[in-house]
């Protein structure tokens, strides 16, 4: 209980600070739109075949735009040495991780909920046909991105080329999850239900999230004291 309330304090703090400046979220929105636009040139939305596979493209947008939010996550603790104060407080590293991860999750999800309708407009697809399964994929996939992105944000916070290092490290680890999310999204956006063989991807996403969340919770303290 106390653990959860401390998690909430941290999440609230991150969200409040972000809403005051809106630096990361605005950049993320803009970036998402730009990428969607550019993808429309590479994968022509007027062709029928492209529209069928377009669901997979969504995750390119989500991952790249999400990185901007994730980068800020620990970077915002650097000015004034705020990270010291957080580490000194009697808050377990796991609570710090979870608090920040939840804040990042909310922010990235917000960007996705804006990108999705725009995508629907550009690609002329009705992505609401399999709405709830698609939401499930969004939630599971975004949590995978967020959990790894948050702890890696702590790993890269002191590195000079942080903005490059974070995606460089996060994306390879996330490939299995991206694979599953893209395949599921491609199906669901095209309006087809997920059946038979393809349900294995849901299991993958679920397992991936659990494993990496657990690993991050355990290793966060080590990273903070590193």
């Amino acid at each position: 209980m106390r653990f959860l309330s401390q998690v909430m304090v941290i999440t609230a703090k991150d969200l409040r600070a972000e809403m005051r400046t809106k630096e990361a979220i605005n950049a993320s929105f803009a970036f998402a739109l730009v990428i969607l636009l550019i993808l429309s040139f590479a994968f022509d939305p007027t062709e029928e075949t492209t529209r069928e596979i377009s669901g997979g493209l969504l995750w390119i947008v989500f991952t790249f735009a999400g990185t901007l939010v994730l980068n800020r996550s620990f970077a915002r603790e650097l000015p004034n040495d705020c990270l010291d104060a957080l580490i000194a407080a009697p808050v377990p590293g796991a609570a710090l991780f979870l608090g920040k991860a939840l804040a990042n999750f909310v922010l990235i999800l917000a960007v996705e909920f804006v990108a999705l309708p725009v995508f629907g407009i550009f690609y002329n697809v009705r992505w609401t046909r399999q709405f709830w399964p698609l939401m499930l994929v969004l939630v599971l996939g975004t949590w995978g991105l967020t959990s790894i992105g948050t702890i890696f944000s702590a790993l890269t916070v002191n590195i000079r080329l942080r903005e490059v290092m974070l995606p460089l490290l996060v994306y390879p680890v996330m490939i299995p999850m991206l694979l599953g999310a893209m395949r599921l999204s491609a199906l669901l956006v095209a309006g087809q239900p997920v059946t038979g063989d393809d349900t294995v991807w849901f299991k993958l996403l679920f397992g991936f999230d659990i494993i990496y969340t657990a690993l991050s919770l355990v290793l966060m303290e080590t990273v903070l004291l590193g």
Partner: protein
Amino acid sequence: MSDAAVDCAGVWKFYGDYPALRDISFEVRPGACLALIGRNGAGKTTLLRILAGFSKPGKGQAHIFGQEPRNAEARRRIGFIGHGIAVYDELSAIENLRLFAKLYRLPNAESAAREWLERTGLDRVRDGLVREFSRGMRQRLAVARAFLHGPSVLLLDEPFTALDDRAVAVLQTVLRDALAAGRTVIMSTHQLREALELATHVALINRGRIAFHGERTDEMLSDPGWIYARYGES
């Protein structure tokens, strides 16, 4: 050992293979005020950060009231001021203090936050965002943050450096009150005068070792450079 407020036994700290702290052993009794002096790079900040629980010693042990600094109990009793003010620019003064009050699980978070804003002279700007504060106001808020949860041990890294006179006055008052209430203070400093006025004990760190540790004498007060001359290396 166990009734000391702060104690170190055989503490070494390595950066890679290089010992930044060598075989540090000392004790600080409750209610004492230790001025930690030494040149840049001598190890003052490293030592303070180990005492505050930010890093672990490579060898040896440090204790706060007999516990490891990283324990939740010990963390609650430690107040730390480092080189940064450790408050968020995007939040207001009261929001910052509320945040830390909640993280330290104070039962009366709101009133504790307001009380400390008053004590540091910031109650009129309590809803102002920290990024709009002057430097002196920021430093006073840092003091409020560190003392907010009523820590028994205060670890201050060069707290008087670059403070304006109002902030110096606030800090001195707050420290005197804390010492009068039986709290323990360790502060590293270059500003020998302000620190030595408050100090009951002095320790000199030189190249990672404690070169001197003893009571503060009047001789030191009148000639702060005396310690360096006697025990330090030029």
